[in-house]
């Protein structure tokens, strides 16, 4: 029942327990539960966009199929692959730190952050192309055709969804990059990895969101 926090030791040998917790296990379980609850709220944040998308698509199936064909399927698929790989790398990084393999962990985390950054760069290319094709509602949208309204609606949702997701990726890249530095300094170890694990959970969720974004944005009406 030690309530007094121990001073932070080097090399992540022991973890400091805050006064409201009885022990490190209780603290870790609380933090993990807190993260999962937070992820549930994240799902619902994105959920509003997915719900709006679903309803608009049910209302305008043809327009959404047409609009989806304006997106870049190749880049979208590459982005998906990048995120899936980065997700597995961060999982490997968590494994490494639990086994006290600090160097591999740092490398894996840097690779994760780099993949995340490359995801953002690819998105930048996408946005740039769409700007040139006059596909950005509210800024430069000049399209014609029978479904022009539904196309514009789709692209509103496209920017809200991918924009909001990219913000999450950006936050993830920053967090993982920062943590990589701390891992290199020896802050974490087999006794002290909760922060890292939580960051990985967050990154996986960002990945999961994209897993659903990919088909609804890039794959609609490809066969038509």
């Amino acid at each position, binding site marked *: 029942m030690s*309530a007094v926090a121990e001073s932070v030791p080097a090399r992540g040998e022991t973890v400091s327990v*805050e*006064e*409201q*917790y009885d022990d490190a296990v*209780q603290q870790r*379980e*609380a933090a993990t*539960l*807190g993260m999962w*609850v*937070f992820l*549930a*709220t*994240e799902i*619902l*944040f*994105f*959920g*509003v*966009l997915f*719900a*709006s998308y679903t*309803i*608009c698509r049910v*209302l*305008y199936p043809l327009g959404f199929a047409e609009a989806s064909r304006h997106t870049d399927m190749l880049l979208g698929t590459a982005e998906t692959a990048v995120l899936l790989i980065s997700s597995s790398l961060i999982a490997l990084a968590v494994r490494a730190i639990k086994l006290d393999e600090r160097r591999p962990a740092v490398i894996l985390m840097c690779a994760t952050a780099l993949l995340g950054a490359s995801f953002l760069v690819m998105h930048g290319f996408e946005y740039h192309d769409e700007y040139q094709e006059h596909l950005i*509602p*509210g*800024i430069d*949208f000049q399209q014609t055709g029978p479904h022009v*309204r*539904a196309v*514009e*609606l789709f692209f*509103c*949702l496209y920017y*809200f969804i991918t924009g909001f997701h990219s913000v999450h990726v950006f936050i993830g890249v920053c967090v993982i990059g920062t943590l990589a530095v701390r891992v290199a300094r020896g802050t974490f170890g087999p006794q002290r990895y909760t922060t890292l694990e939580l960051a990985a959970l967050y990154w996986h969720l960002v990945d999961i969101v994209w897993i659903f974004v990919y088909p609804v944005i890039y794959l609609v009406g490809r066969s038509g």
Partner: protein
Amino acid sequence: MSATAHPELSVRSFLARDYGLLDWLTTRDHKRIAILYALGITFFFFLGGVAATLIRFNLVEPQGAIMSAETYNKTFTFHGVVMVWFFLIPSIPATLGNFLLPLMIGARDVAFPRLNLASWYLYIGGGLFTIAALLAGGVDTGWTFYTPFSTMFSNSNVFLVVIGVFITGFSSIFTGLNFIVTVHSLRTRGMHWFRLPLFVWGIYATSLVMVLATPVLAMTLALIGLERGLGVGVFDPALGGDPLLFQHLFWFYSHPAVYIMILPAMGVASEIITCFVRRRIFGYRFMTYSMLAIAVIGFLVWGHHMFVAGQSVYASTLFSLLSFIVAVPSAIKVFNWTATLRKGDISFEAPMLYALGFVGLFMLGGLTGLILAAPALDIPLTDTYFVIAHFHYVMVGGSVMAYLGGIHYWWPKITGWLYPEGWARFAAILMFFGFNLTFFPQYLLGYEGMPRRYFSYLPEFQLLNILSSAGASILAVGYLMPALYLLWSLRYGRAAGNNPWDARGLEWQTSSPPPKENFLSPPVVREPYAYHEAAP
């Protein structure tokens, strides 16, 4: 208990030592954060109250007594926004909940104290945006922000208010998250789930709703902000955006939000009633199940706000049925509180008066809610004063009464001083009568057909409006009284002692005010409401 508090305890009290402004503003103690919230909430309550007073004042005359239609619209919008998001939603959870939840489960603090403080800052930050919107000229959309009015037609400061509510939403989410984890992780030895006081159950159920509903509101309001900024968006009718889409998203939050307001109030009432009846709550398990049932089913009934909105008849039918079902657990609770009174040993201190008032007024609000849940009756009654009366019975008669009851009940614990009993009883009774005089005529107004949000009205509605405004002035006096005598008690009140009500909750086993670490020795955990046994 002597007139002065125990010297050692008062030194260890969470209020003693480190009382500089900076110490308070950087505190991580849940008890101090509760007090910070209480200050903010009281401020916003009186701000919203001023708006309410102006509304009632204006409605004394059919053509509007004191202001223009535009000002009136901004006033009721401000009243709604402030009362819903800056008073009712955080009221009981963020003040009493923050203070009591760790004490009641025998914990030293909430699970994430830094996050708790951050929540308060978010709350204040959101409040500042809302006040900025007021100073910049106000907003006239109503607290419901219906599209396309809010996105394409209103010329007021929608953007600022939307940002304010968005930020405050995060405060709500983090508070809920904190409480959920606290209840799961930090219960003291022996405090298993069915030994939790009903207040904790109420806060827990509320936290679930906060966490699962608020993100939807935040994102929906963000979409409104984006649509105003870009001039184009998901709700834009020119693009074929459906106006009902917004309503679905909005009410997915805003109906459960009613349960955010009422579930903790139910918890407070249960604590107070058991204490002053001196017996176990009747049907403890049913009370806990019904709270969880309300929290979950409450998410499935939002469409009853849209019976005349153009929703499909099938959807209306389903939502109506679910709305009737969610009324069952509320009915169970009212019956259980009443049954708890039976064979009790009842005394009528001010908290008990508030609690009894809560049960009665909540029941009237709930019963009229049943009428509105029937789609055929909702057709003539929705968007009239009948609805206004209904939700004020639940939120003001229910939540605010319980909040004030809780403030009185735990005032000795929080401050260490007793409030003046005579004044408190008088204020409680005054409020009860003032409240009924204010809002009962509004049921009649609604039945007669007076629509809500009307700046002017037909002359035949005047009598009832005058009655309502007269009641409001009594209510205003009633609300000012506790503010005054509670402050007075801080200076001149009698020392309370650790357990002035001889109550059984864990929070009464520590000193008043509690020490910073809550308990100097581990509290004794037994079944809740063990009034048939002696206090430990």
